[in-house]
């Protein structure tokens, strides 16, 4: 039972990370209809920035906020400078740009900070934090920080005029212009926010997976799965999807371990959890192609 809870909690912690990256993907997707393949690498780059700030002597939380702010500005700049000229370009051109961005982030991080794997600290106190035998201090911290970030974002979109304007611009850009919303800037702002959320995810996961230029590769895959399971056009769905995928993969491994313990036969374990989790995702999407919380868009012809 204790092991079950432990696995469940660690699934929640992973899920929180997937939820953040999935949310970043969805935020850009709903306003541009593009999936940003570089989201993970951008988050990795942000994590290096926070590491660098700490190397320069800043405290973890200052470095955290600094890196999130810098990422926000970088996100805005990427949209304004690189993607603005591609507004009317075919989808494939944009995809190529995203892949280019991915490669650039990756090799730049390698060139600046080297490909050597680095340790990354956890800001959460070891002694007083967490619940012994159930959830470790870092895992609990990750879940809490993510929940705070997600609630702040929710409040921003739900209650502020700017958040409302961003939603309106994503839903109906032409009409948004007609009520005076500067839609171009809303897109850039969306990129900035997505980059900032990615930074949070990267910084939170770095202690678990260690810091290196390829740290986000697998996580981006999970995040895609999470976004699709939740319904790619639905931010709330992406968050729930993230937690589902996180818990699911750990439950798969746990079940495999239990079976092995009981019967002595090894069927699945830690090594297969990604595979099995993705099979379940494919299964869900076969039954509900729009995702669990997605809406089927019906086009009138």
């Amino acid at each position: 039972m204790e092991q079950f809870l432990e696995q469940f909690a660690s699934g929640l912690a992973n899920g929180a990370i997937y939820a953040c990256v999935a949310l970043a993907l969805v935020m850009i997707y709903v306003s541009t209809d593009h999936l940003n393949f570089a989201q993970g690498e951008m988050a990795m780059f942000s994590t290096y920035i926070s590491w660098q700030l700490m190397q320069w002597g800043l405290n973890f939380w200052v470095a955290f906020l600094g890196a999130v702010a810098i990422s926000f500005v970088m996100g805005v700049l990427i949209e304004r400078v690189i993607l603005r000229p591609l507004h009317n370009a075919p989808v494939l051109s944009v995809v190529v740009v995203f892949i280019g961005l991915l490669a650039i982030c990756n090799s730049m991080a390698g060139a600046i900070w080297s490909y050597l794997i680095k340790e990354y600290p956890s800001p959460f106190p070891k002694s007083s934090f967490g619940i012994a035998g159930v959830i470790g201090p870092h895992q609990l911290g990750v879940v809490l920080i993510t929940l705070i970030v997600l609630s702040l974002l929710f409040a921003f979109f739900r209650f502020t005029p700017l958040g409302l304007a961003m939603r309106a611009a994503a839903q109906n850009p032409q009409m948004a212009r007609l009520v005076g919303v500067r839609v171009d800037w809303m897109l850039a702002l969306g990129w900035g926010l997505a980059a900032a959320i990615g930074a949070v995810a990267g910084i939170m996961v770095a202690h678990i997976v260690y810091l290196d230029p390829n740290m986000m590769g697998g996580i981006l895959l999970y995040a895609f799965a999470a976004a699709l399971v939740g319904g790619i056009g639905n931010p709330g769905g992406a968050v729930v999807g993230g937690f589902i995928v996180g818990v699911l993969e750990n439950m798969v491994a746990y079940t495999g371990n239990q079976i092995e313990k009981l019967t002595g036969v090894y069927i699945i374990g830690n090594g297969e959890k990604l595979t099995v989790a993705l099979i379940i995702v494919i299964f869900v999407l076969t039954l509900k192609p729009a995702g669990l919380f997605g809406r089927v868009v019906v086009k009138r012809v």
Partner: protein
Amino acid sequence: MAALLEVKALKAFYGSTQSLYDVSFEIPAGGITTLLGANGAGKTTTLRAICNMVRTEGAVRFEGHDILGKPTEEIVRRRIAHVPEGRGTFTSLTVDENLRIAAYTRKDKDGVKAERERVFNYFPRLKERIQQQAGTLSGGEQQMLAIARALMLKPRLMLLDEPSFGLAPLIVVEIFRILKRINEEEKVSILLVEQNAALALDLASHAYVLETGRVVMSGDSSVVKNDENIRKSYLGY
């Protein structure tokens, strides 16, 4: 009386296709003017051209300022409210959010609050539906919401694109009655594009008739209405 909106030799293009050739007209402050014409005459394009939503040439002056080619968002800030064809509802937002976003450019909180009350006075049904998703409203209610949204801007000029489209006759009559009231009580000038010429001519004081991207005639509504030749050749009733 100086014209509120002056349109001179307006041309408009979709890609390389020209759809307006020479459109000139004036809208007096405080009045209701209607643009009539058959399908494809360029009525909707004219409204879109005023808000810079298509590529244009020519001149558009609003309250003495040249607005042609200015970004749509800036033109809206001069308080020109465009109610587009198909109503332009933000379907996934609630009625309340639709009204709030409509006042996005306004900084006077108290004014916006008062506007809301006025809007509910014209459209009490919207108040009942305030927390409902706009996409779930009926066609008539969505048209009301579209007009309400325009009002939240406290507009000087309202551009209305076929407010009668797809609505039951009784609801159309109700909406046109409200438009009349809005024009009189709020001193909002209205430029109305309509397929339903008879209805539009009853409401408007002045009419322009478009044919294939040109103004082919204009005059007082009563004159246009009673001229059998115009009716038969351009308005088809």
